[in-house]
């Protein structure tokens, strides 16, 4: 056994140093860190765009950017946040945690893993760089609906190719994750004994493999409609722009769950740790996650209640969408039941987790409101929708990412982060998040349309509150950056098991986790 160890070490313990280490690495921890840093950078890039949008919306009228640039900012803000910030963050967590959690020596395909990451910077360059080409960035909205996306200039092609490259990255990353989970678990770790984060990523990766190719198909048809004379989305040739919406949202709705299921996984680790109780209803969590994933394939029409689908279609999509509330309710119930009578403490990860449960539920309920076809017909494309998806994406996905980062930073860096500053960051974020997005519900209910740089004067006050909140929210994130850098550079030494109530294989290796872990599978009980 000793010889085995040495042999494996010889191959790759002498990794290159400096930049070459990261260009050529095959180490899941290096790649995880690169994903997380990339995500954080894109979070600030997308956040900057959001602040320009909120600055413009501080007053009615046009002050800072012209309507064209405003459209470009809303479009690229969304694409950057979805494909550049949220998804890579979860892939970063997957890279760091899945091999540690299942007791694997690395990801199943270590080289392809690095390719998945290194496709992201070129794609981001195409996407963000499209602001610099004549005509500016794509202004069609992130959904790239024709005919706007057909009429756009060079930047739409850059966006389409960026989507292709990010799609290839996601598919390869997902195949890697599925294979790692299915084939590299420590002996004794049956599927129903896997950590919840691993389960949620298995299902997420399945969704990604199923729908990213569909998005690739959709944008390919856009490209041929734009340049090669096809009429997929043009009624003048027997096509239909609505067809794009159907294909896009067949991808788009599972995509929404791709951005929330790993969040559910992270929260399902944090809450048991700080409630010092095992997760309530493990099996029901697995079944609920699977149900949400399966239902996600048959609800896409709720994004297009106003395009004139047959009434039977609208009804089907309404009821199917409402069904999703059932497994989601199971999850929220389980998290609360996990906390019930637990000996709880409220370190920063737990604060984010508790805020996640309550704020995500608000976002879930506003989703239920929007699922009702007749209600959606008045609320469609208003700020109510903007409020809804920021509650599920920011106080959902991003809160879980921040909570997860605080939770595992000790494992990654070997140091405890600054708890006091972490808590300040949490409260600033939570309060300013609600100042930013809660008034948007009222704006939407009162009829303010989204994606428009100007508005009627009666919307001014709520917009001003929202903009002030947004700037506070944006600048609070600099504190997050500071806490992370401070934690990397030093701090109290973290134990192997950094949290008293933490369970799982990742807490059996030292902190920081050595460059190579579990080169021979650990015993799992």
């Amino acid at each position, binding site marked *: 056994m000793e010889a085995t160890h040495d042999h494996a070490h010889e191959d790759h313990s002498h990794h290159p140093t400096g930049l070459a280490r990261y260009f*050529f690495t095959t180490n899941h921890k290096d790649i995880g860190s690169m994903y997380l840093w990339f995500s954080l950078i894109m979070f600030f890039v997308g956040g900057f765009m959001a602040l320009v949008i909120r600055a413009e919306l501080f007053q009615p009228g046009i002050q800072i950017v012209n309507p064209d640039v405003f459209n470009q900012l809303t479009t690229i803000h969304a694409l950057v946040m979805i494909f550049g910030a949220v998804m890579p963050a979860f892939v970063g967590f997957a890279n760091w945690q899945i091999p540690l959690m299942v007791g694997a020596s690395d990801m199943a395909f270590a080289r392809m893993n690095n390719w998945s990451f290194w496709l992201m910077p*070129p794609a981001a360059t195409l996407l963000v760089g499209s602001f610099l080409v004549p005509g500016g960035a794509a202004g069609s909205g992130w959904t790239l609906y024709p005919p706007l996306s057909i009429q756009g200039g060079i930047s739409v092609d850059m966006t389409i190719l960026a989507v292709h490259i990010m799609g290839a990255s996601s598919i390869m990353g997902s195949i890697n994750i599925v294979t790692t989970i299915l084939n590299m678990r420590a002996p004794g770790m049956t599927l129903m004994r896997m950590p919840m984060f691993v389960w949620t990523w298995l299902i997420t990766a399945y969704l990604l493999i199923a729908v990213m190719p569909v998005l690739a*198909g959709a944008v390919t048809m856009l490209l041929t409609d734009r340049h090669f004379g096809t*009429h997929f989305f043009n009624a003048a040739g027997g096509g239909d722009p609505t067809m794009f919406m159907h294909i896009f949202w067949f991808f788009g709705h599972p995509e929404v769950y791709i951005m929330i299921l790993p969040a559910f996984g992270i929260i399902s680790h944090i809450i048991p740790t700080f409630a010092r109780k095992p997760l309530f209803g493990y099996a029901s969590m697995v079944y609920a996650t699977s149900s949400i994933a399966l239902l996600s394939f048959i609800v896409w029409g709720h994004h297009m209640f106003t395009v004139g689908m047959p009434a039977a279609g609208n009804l089907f999509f309404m009821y199917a969408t409402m069904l999703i509330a059932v497994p989601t309710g199971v999850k929220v119930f389980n998290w609360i039941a996990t906390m019930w009578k637990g000996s709880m403490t409220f370190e920063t990860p737990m604060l984010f987790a508790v805020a996640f449960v309550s704020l995500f539920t608000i976002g879930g309920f506003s989703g239920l409101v929007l699922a009702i076809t007749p209600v959606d017909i008045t609320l469609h494309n208003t700020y109510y929708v903007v409020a809804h998806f920021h509650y599920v994406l920011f106080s959902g996905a991003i809160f879980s990412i921040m909570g997860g980062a605080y939770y595992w930073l000790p494992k990654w860096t070997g140091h405890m982060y600054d708890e006091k500053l972490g808590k300040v960051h949490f409260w600033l974020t939570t309060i300013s998040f609600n100042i930013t997005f809660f008034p948007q519900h009222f704006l939407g209910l009162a009829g303010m349309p989204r994606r428009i740089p100007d508005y009627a004067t009666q919307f001014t006050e709520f917009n001003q509150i929202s903009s002030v909140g947004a700037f506070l929210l944006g600048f609070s994130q600099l504190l997050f950056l500071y806490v992370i850098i401070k934690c990397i550079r030093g701090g109290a030494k973290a134990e192997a098991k950094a949290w008293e109530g933490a369970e799982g294989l990742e807490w059996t290796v030292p902190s920081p986790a050595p460059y190579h872990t579990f080169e021979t599978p650990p015993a799992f009980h």
Partner: protein
Amino acid sequence: MSTAQDVYYVPAPSKWPVVGSTALFLLAIGMVSLLHWGKTPGMVFLAAGFAVLTYMLFGWFGNVIHESVSGKYNTQVDASFRWAMGWFIFSEVMFFAAFFGALFYARQMSVPILGDLDNQLIWPGFKPGWPSEGPYLTDAFKPMEAWGLPAVNTLLLLTSGVTLTWAHHALMENKRTQLLIGMAATIALGLTFLFFQATEYGEAAFTLSTGVYGATFFLLTGFHGFHVTLGTLMLIVIMARCGKGHFTPEHHFAFEAVAWYWHFVDVVWLGLFIFVYWM
């Protein structure tokens, strides 16, 4: 070799991923240039991109083949390859599903709905049936007939599935001559299929811009043809490796992966034959 078999093989740091990313970035820039800044810069970037991509494919696959024949892959690594190839083919199925979805939507929804409207503005003589004619036609509209070349092509691909399975059985029974004959037959059938497909394109009485029929026809059959081309290239590589004495009756997953891919391309064709040509 016993030490290598005990641990899961994790490759050493490798330059191929960044080389591959560079290739795709160059291809993307080339594509954008070609569409907006003219032929010369576009072709330069595209050529560079393809060159780098080819370099990467040879280098990376070369590494993998070398690791495989030197016995670094244990049975667990083999299982990883099997899972991954299966999921990759699933992703390909979903890619074609997008285009089949477009075909079904056009046939069942968009063209019939246009028929309900005041449709004389769409193009003169618009009829909401399928195949739909489309604008810009100079000659009489003639959709592709199923029982000519496409039927022959169906027969060719189905036969190629049989010859490939025959070659696989030869490999498992270590009959190397039969293996090479089977591979050569499969490749020949694939190339004949591609030749007939090109002939059919040449004879088509409609184009990519002939309305939604032309669009769905050419994108579905075009992407399929592209996959057959890739499959044929993969078969040629595998045959060359067979000729060099690679693969044993027990270990030959590269062969099997290509066979899975070939059967997948075959099944897609059956869908095309039924829904694009025949019904």
